[in-house]
């Protein structure tokens, strides 16, 4: 698909030479076609005593974002995590495996779940992120938005 678009753009079409608008449209379509994958890391304060009403509100908030992004075909994944009380960290040092209880780092807010969405650009990703509930039980929370790095094939010999 992308290769077809590529070929079309590359061909010098005499009739189209000065029709800049047409070309711009093509390129805009080509660009819109490439979406970027973003991960939204949901940080909240664990162990907050939320009321059932609040929990229902948070649940419905997540449901709404997931339904809407699925409807638009940009939803890739979303899952909640068990609390950091269940976390175990391992570290391999000098060939030895070191296992410790607890998360990698003690922080004020803890990673509680994630979303993966396909978005046109950061602005769209931020728009969705703003809709994901991150606060619960009167505490604050936040969402970290990170682009997912596309992994190319294994390095070819001779290329840099």
């Amino acid at each position, binding site marked *: 698909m992308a290769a077809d678009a*590529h070929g079309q753009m590359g061909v*010098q079409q005499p009739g189209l030479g*000065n029709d800049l608008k047409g*070309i711009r449209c093509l390129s805009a379509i080509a*660009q819109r076609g490439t979406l970027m994958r973003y991960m939204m890391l949901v940080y909240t304060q664990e162990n907050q005593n939320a009321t059932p009403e609040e929990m229902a509100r948070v649940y419905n908030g997540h449901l709404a974002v997931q339904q809407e992004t699925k409807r638009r075909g940009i939803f890739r994944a979303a899952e909640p995590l068990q609390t950091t009380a269940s976390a175990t960290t391992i570290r391999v040092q000098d060939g030895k495996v070191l296992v410790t209880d607890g998360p990698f780092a003690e922080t004020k807010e803890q990673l509680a779940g994630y979303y993966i969405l396909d978005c046109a650009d950061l602005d769209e990703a931020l728009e969705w992120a703003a809709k994901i509930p991150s606060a619960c039980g009167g505490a604050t929370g936040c969402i970290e938005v990170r682009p997912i*790095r596309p992994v190319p094939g294994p390095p070819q010999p001779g290329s840099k």
Partner: protein
Amino acid sequence: MSELRSAIEQVFRRESGRIIAGLIRVSQSFDLAEEAMQDAFASALSDWEKKGIPENPAAWINLVARRKLVDYARRNRTQRDNQDQLLYETGQRATAEPESNSGNGCEEMEFQDDRLRLIFTCCHPALNIEAQVGLTLHTLGGLATREIARAFLVAEPTLAQRLVRAKRKIREARIPYEVPAEAALPERLAAVQAVIYLVFNEGYSATAGDSLVRRELCAEAIRLARTLHELLPREPETLGLLALMLLHDSRRDARVNGGGELVPLEEQDRSLWHSEQIEEGLYLVEKALCSGSAGPYQLQAAIAAVHAEAKTAAETDWRQIVELYGLLARRNRSPVVALNHAVAMAMAVGYEQGLEEIHRLGASGALDSYYLYHAARADLLRRLLRKEEALAAYDRALCLTANAVERRYLRRRIAELNM
């Protein structure tokens, strides 16, 4: 030769922001765009020497830079990826002759859109504020990294690194090269205005550093505000910001004395104020205030306008200033505004009342470690001839600021009181 060089430098300072804005759109890359533009300016140096300066230098640079982009695309053809298909667009565009670009209304519109995109990308809140400022001055203002580094008192490699990181984030996180959607526009526009005002204040606050560069920063901030107003004319706060900066900048020659000391407003030699800037500032404030509800920049500009209209410090219409600070305080609960409001009251109604108001503000103790609180108190106590209390307040203020210019001013007041 040097004449040619300065002509090219002028084109660069005036036009590089416009040119690079379009190049970034077609190449989708800040780095490629910059490289192409620099190459084009380098070509200009040799070409214009032989053939003379073209009628429309900016169009010439633009065309040559776009051809360079095509060259880069060819160079990379073997390893091109999907993104490079955008470069083909450049190939099509660059076949047009420069004449067809000049005087074409469509093309002009496009330039404007591109510059607006560039402003919003450079001032995107996903970039840290230092990066926003650096990127705006560098790409839109055409300032060299060396100049920006000097103005902000950071090492050049530090600043260069900052720009590299910002451009990398734009690319990797895909910060869009677009004017924000209507819903997000007010917030994003405020961010752009904040960057421009920060640039101005950096130039205006007389801390250390090269004074010429600082003056240049003020001029650049004013230029950026003009551009923003030209591109989005229906925004009264942009006009307010422009007016505010013009009115402050008009006092630049009067606010520092020969010894590099800050001269307070009431002691300034008003004949040194620049009247053209004042006239324009006054005109713009009025225009902005007529067009709707007054935002913080407009209110601050209006306050600066009242000062500008007073022929002598004694003729200042303090009652009007009290009113304006009152409006500003309602929107902005910052202690600086509240203190200024109290000081204006002191000047309008009486020092005693002003001092009472300041003490009321400080009653909670929240302002106790705040330099301006003690400086304002000290000033009113001095005017009330309560020498010992004034000295104590000046001492307290002196303990709370590290700013060399402020410290020199406070020491001068202390010395005067001790005489």
